[in-house]
């Protein structure tokens, strides 16, 4: 039961409200997860502090070598953003797969991250982009790598009763990069993924210069397949190499058996398949762009 629904008019105001209610207040953006969690008794806060009317948090912009996405930006806005589609297409692809159009209109990328659900399309893409989150507290602001923020299923180091994520930022992808976003799900819309793989590949000629592979939700948090990434560097871009990388990535997957979303055995095997496919597709795109 909520006792109050408040609109913050600035970041400072939001933080002040959080402080004033001493743990009874929580930030709300799109609310697509939070409303249900609250109805199901999974969110103890009774005061909602709505951040969607704070000026300045709705921007998608390139500044000081980074792309910045404000805390109010929705999945739909990211999926449609020319800047994101040009400089971080992997994120646009991921955001376009979330739920249905209505959910994408309301749900925000930052909210999705703070909620720390492993089956998060946007967050997986942010892992591959090495994104950082701007965390505002009454003491000041800091940047935290996304991998530090995720701690487990639904567990995030950001204290939503005290702190606020105001933006996410990452370096734009260089022109020669190829991207691929692979998604396996029980149906084609309105569903959380069984598995997603986000890949960004950089090549010089036929040789892989750098590879980034993020995978979710086959562990408590999305993760980077670092062994596979390291294995790829300096290798020729070919099917056998991609398959080896797939195997290395699969070795790090720890999916649970799910009656609804598939067995651990199947999902682990699919990590290998989708990583291989993502690498092949990304390599092709490198060639096209190259």
């Amino acid at each position: 039961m909520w006792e109050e629904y408040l609109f913050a008019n600035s970041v400072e105001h939001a933080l002040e409200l959080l402080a004033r209610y001493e743990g009874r207040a929580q930030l709300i953006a799109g609310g697509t997860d939070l409303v249900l969690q609250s109805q199901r008794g999974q969110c103890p806060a009774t005061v909602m502090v709505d951040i969607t009317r704070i000026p300045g948090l709705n921007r998608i912009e390139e500044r000081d070598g980074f792309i910045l996405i404000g805390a109010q930006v929705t999945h739909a806005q990211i999926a449609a953003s020319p800047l994101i589609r040009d400089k971080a297409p992997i994120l646009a692809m991921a955001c376009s797969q979330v739920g249905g159009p209505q959910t994408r209109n309301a749900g925000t990328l930052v909210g999705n991250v703070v909620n720390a659900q492993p089956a998060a399309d946007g967050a997986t893409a942010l892992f591959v982009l090495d994104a950082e989150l701007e965390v505002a507290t009454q003491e000041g602001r800091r940047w935290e790598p996304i991998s530090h923020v995720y701690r487990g299923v639904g567990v995030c180091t950001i204290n939503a009763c005290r702190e606020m994520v105001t933006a996410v930022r990452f370096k734009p992808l260089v022109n020669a990069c190829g991207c691929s976003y692979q998604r396996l799900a029980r149906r084609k819309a309105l569903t959380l993924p069984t598995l997603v793989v986000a890949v960004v590949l950089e090549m010089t000629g036929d040789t892989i210069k750098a590879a980034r592979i993020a995978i979710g939700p086959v562990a408590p948090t999305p993760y980077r397949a670092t062994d596979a990434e390291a294995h790829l560097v300096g290798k020729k871009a070919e099917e056998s190499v991609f398959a080896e990388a797939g195997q290395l990535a699969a070795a790090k997957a720890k999916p649970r058996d799910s009656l609804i979303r598939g067995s651990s055995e199947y999902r682990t095997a699919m990590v290998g398949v989708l990583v291989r496919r993502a690498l092949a597709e990304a390599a092709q795109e490198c060639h096209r762009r190259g």
Partner: protein
Amino acid sequence: MSDAIGTPQARLDIAAKVKGTRKYPQDFNMEGQLWAAVVWAAHPHAIVRRIDTSAAEAVPGVVRIITSKDVPVNSYGIGIPDQPVLVGEGEKVRWVGDRIAIVVAQDLRTAHRARDLVRVDYEPLPVLTDVFTAMKDGAPLVHENRPNNILHHIPIRKGNVEEGFAQADVIVEGEVATPFVEHAYMQPEAGIGYIDEEGRVTVIAAAQWPHDDLHQIARMLNLPEDQVREIVPAVGGAFGGREDMYIQHLLALCAFVMRRPIKMVWDREESITHTGKRHPFYFAYKVGAKRDGTLTAVKIRLISDAGAYASTSIPVLNNAASFAAGPYKYPHAHVDAYTVFTNNAVTMAMRGFGATQPPVMYERMMDQLAEALQMDPVEFRLKNLLGDGDITITGNAMWGGVGIKETLRQAAIAAGWRQQGDRWIKPDLGQPSAPHKKRGIGIACAYKNVGYSFGFDDKSEAEVILRLRDDGSIASATVKTAAVDVGQGVTTALAQIAAEALGVPVSRVRVALIDTADTPNAGSSSASRHTYITGNAVYGACKAALEKRERILLEETGEMTVSAKYLYRGRSRRPTTAYDPVTGQCNPHISYSYGTEIALVEVDLETGETEVLKMWAAHDAGKVVNPAMYFGQVAGGVHMGVGYGLTEEFIMENGVPRTRRFSEYFIPTVLDMPRELVSLAVEVEDPTGPFGAKGLGETPTLPTAAAIANAIHDATGVWLKRIPATSEMVWRALHGKG
């Protein structure tokens, strides 16, 4: 002739639906209403030791907590009244849909809060979760008054199967399991119970058979039927799921106890977890054929999970057994069909009523035989499909325009098959969209009864009231019959039939709203029966009214209103009979509809994902009354079949539902449907149907999953042990992982 039949006619209810003004049960409110919420069983099998309502009663705003002590006759059920309305202390809960109490409060939030405070002490009992365990000697009993958990067994014996298999050159065998399926109608259970101005216990709710609800409610409340009333407003889908009562009797009970209006609205989770499902079936088949492709014998064992209570599990089994061999000629047949109690969800009617599950098995057998005989699957089927006068496994001759072969011919030709004499040649399927994908095409044929079967007296009554102009012509006509429009469009179809029979435009026909106090019993919106059975009743009433009008005009009585009632009985044209208890021979059904569907799929060999690229659906529902509604029924049936084949499965773990919401139970979205659906109307008329119409509601769902499963086999060479063919299921089959 008014050209009302077979021509484009807008649905009568559609303008109100697109405006959002049409009222569904949750849209009604009454002065002074209270709200009620159900306390559900927390265990699938347990004895209720103690019910403590004190904490709940102490919640401000709680008015009363209704328990089993408040129920005059504490049992109900369609056909067999074996379900407790509310489970009392010392009694058993048998599944998680059983109810302990009903909390009545000033508002819904309070009712919800209070129901969580009703404390129930249970003594858990072993939970029966599968039919094989439940069938074993010494298994715990779901119902103590029965000798075992087998609710019903049907044997069918025709000819001598051993002889038949001896004549066969090829014999194939197989096993398949089908899942529990949720109806997933979009409108969750809701309604109002109140005492009307004449003192009747009245319910406003969605229902499929208002007069049977009336009968059950009157029995429960120990009242004469004329002291009970049910009003059915717009119904947000049903598909069989509202043939049993889930909320109607509870609303009636609340009104009876409280003597004031009580509203109840269930959320989606309540709707999914506490209502009945389509039966899962386990099939084991053996089929033989001669080298020339002639079928010789079929041996079938099928078992359905009845869940915790009987519901219509016996009639569903009756149907499943009679359709188990499919629309094919078998000189020898041996069927053993069982339905078995467990502590799983109650299983009940759902689009197809026992005819939906077998095609997945029998159509696989047809493909296996065709493959073994190196015959084209179209050619093989055409050799064996039933025609007029052919004898089924229950020994009856087919009648009434048997269009199954024609549906196969038309679907196959549309899908690209070429015919050379008796030979049929499969089309080229084109290139798959990726090297790791393969294409396949699959065929399935199916048929289904129209109307109630096995000696059940199928009848429907309609009244037609004509208002005349001075010159005796018809100014308007009102049709009264309690045939519920659950979305299928029966109201419009009946108006068209009346318009045609009366020779007036459809715009002059009004169909009365359904109220058991005013509209006669039309039977249920099920068994694809209203167009045929109630259509005949409306036709009969129209003809009777026209005759009366003739007399009035002849005698110049000056009457301006004519009304006539007509009771149509299916057995007046075609009597049906129950199974012979030993041989199973009988005249099972009144009429039939037929269909063939062909699916073109692409299977990802690495992930197991299946995409249905295109479907062809040819259905013989006799004369098509309304072409746009015909397409809607076919497309909707295919939708449910695509879900059945690929995505839908209601999962329970130890009797506890795990797929509780739309985010966990996956009905196909628009993106999951084949990009193209080619619908072919094959109009083989049934001379006993109104203007030659049969029925259509169910047949389009029957072949879809089977066609998809056969197409997956065509693409990959593997047979699945069960549906739905989720990507993991297909992947397991492809990788020999069982």
